[in-house]
């Protein structure tokens, strides 16, 4: 009863106008809505209220923010490690790709040089990768990955880069040993382009260096002269660039000039060489049919790279 009475007291004090108060509040709400909908001038009020609510919003979002923060801290290490690992892998892959790309660029450049280095006496050419080399003062040899099955025959001219590099010496089924121009046992018949003098260029045993020991003292030869193959001897077709004279020494002790030349082909750097097949009917080859110059006739029928169209 007391509770009821106290409630009644509240009611008598406050609830007599309770309907009125409700109507008042409701009217206020409707007015607010009306002005908010129509005028938009309540925007500033709302703006202010939002500003006062901002600390509250901050506080409201803080638990989730704190949770995220701690989780990030704990995940950070693992995530960074994983990311690091991924980046390492990626980097390794990219480095490999970069290396491959650089190699392809070099290959391309060398192949272009080969294609332009082949003169029109060349009928076919077959690129081969260098897979081994031996360059001592007694032996200057290369091993390449093409052999009899590719049509390579013994005593075949081999060019690389800007000029002649040697000839095939021992032909295996899948690989070939090439004796380089600079091998002490090798000699190549050459011709000086400026004067037309023919002589032999012997290997010096030093990589890329040739010596011309059979030129008499009075021969017109000087540093800078160019040597090409003369086409004599039947191995090398005529006209292939060989070397450039670097040094001519004449002293009274010998009746011969001591002449040294540097080969155009970079023996220690070229990684692609090219076997060439001279045009059989070309006068520079001596008119001999190819089959007579050795090699396996059956093997030659196997496909080899088509030559650049002769210009």
């Amino acid at each position, binding site marked *: 009863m007391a509770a009821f009475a106290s409630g009644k007291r509240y009611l008598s004090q406050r609830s007599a106008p309770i309907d009125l108060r409700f109507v008042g509040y409701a009217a206020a*709400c409707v007015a607010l*809505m009306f002005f908010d909908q129509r005028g938009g001038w309540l925007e500033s009020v709302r703006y202010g209220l939002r500003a006062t609510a901002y600390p509250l919003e901050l506080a*409201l979002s803080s638990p989730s923010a704190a949770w995220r923060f701690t989780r990030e801290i704990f995940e950070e290490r693992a995530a960074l490690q994983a990311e690091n690992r991924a980046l390492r892998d990626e980097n390794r892959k990219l480095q490999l790709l970069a290396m491959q790309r650089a190699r392809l660029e070099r290959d391309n450049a060398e192949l272009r040089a080969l294609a332009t280095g082949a003169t029109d006496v060349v009928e076919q050419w077959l690129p081969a990768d260098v897979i081994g080399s031996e360059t001592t003062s007694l032996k200057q040899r290369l091993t390449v990955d093409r052999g009899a099955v590719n049509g390579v025959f013994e005593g075949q001219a081999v060019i690389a880069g800007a000029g002649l590099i040697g000839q095939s010496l021992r032909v295996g089924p899948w690989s070939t040993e090439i004796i380089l121009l600079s091998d002490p046992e090798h000699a190549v018949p050459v011709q000086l382009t400026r004067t037309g003098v023919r002589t032999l260029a012997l290997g010096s045993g030093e990589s890329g260096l040739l010596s011309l020991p059979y030129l008499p003292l009075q021969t017109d030869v000087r540093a800078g002269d160019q040597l090409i193959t003369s086409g004599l001897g039947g191995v090398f077709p005529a006209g292939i660039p060989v070397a450039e004279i670097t040094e001519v020494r004449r002293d009274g002790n010998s009746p011969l000039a001591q002449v040294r030349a540097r080969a155009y082909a970079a023996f220690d750097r070229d990684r692609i060489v090219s076997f060439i097949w001279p045009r059989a009917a070309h006068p520079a080859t001596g008119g001999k049919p190819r089959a007579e110059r050795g090699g396996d006739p059956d093997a030659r029928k196997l496909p080899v790279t088509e030559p650049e169209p002769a210009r």
Partner: protein
Amino acid sequence: MKLPRQGRMRAAFVMLIAFVLQSIPLPTALDVVRPPLLVLAVVYWSLRAPGIGGIGSGFLAGLALDVYRGALFGQYALATTLVAYVGVRQHLLIRNQTPFQQGLFVFASLVAWEFVVWLIDGWTGQPTGNWSRWLPVLSGTVAWPLVAWLLERGDTHAQR
């Protein structure tokens, strides 16, 4: 009885808590079924102590919701004022009912509350959403016994 002073503080505090709980960001899946705790608190104080809470507190709580939810200014205020008014008006009757019947009253209040908001949304051309907007009415009704029990407990503790 020192209800008015202390009680007012307590009511304000409880409503602040309810507002915070109703506004804390939650994942959407939980957010759709979150009970309108602030409205429940208003209903509770209207029934329990009309002199403390009452229409004014409903109006203020509604305004807070308006601001926080970015609704039309006065929209939630009107709905919550209405709920508070009905609660205050009928508190003597409702108090004497069984808990189940009180639950029914709360359900009706929440339906009316959401209905007013929905109505105003529709009139003013706001998007009215789909059926999922009525989920808080159900969850609020389900949560009501717990809320009432907790607040009741707090009251008896405070009065001791």
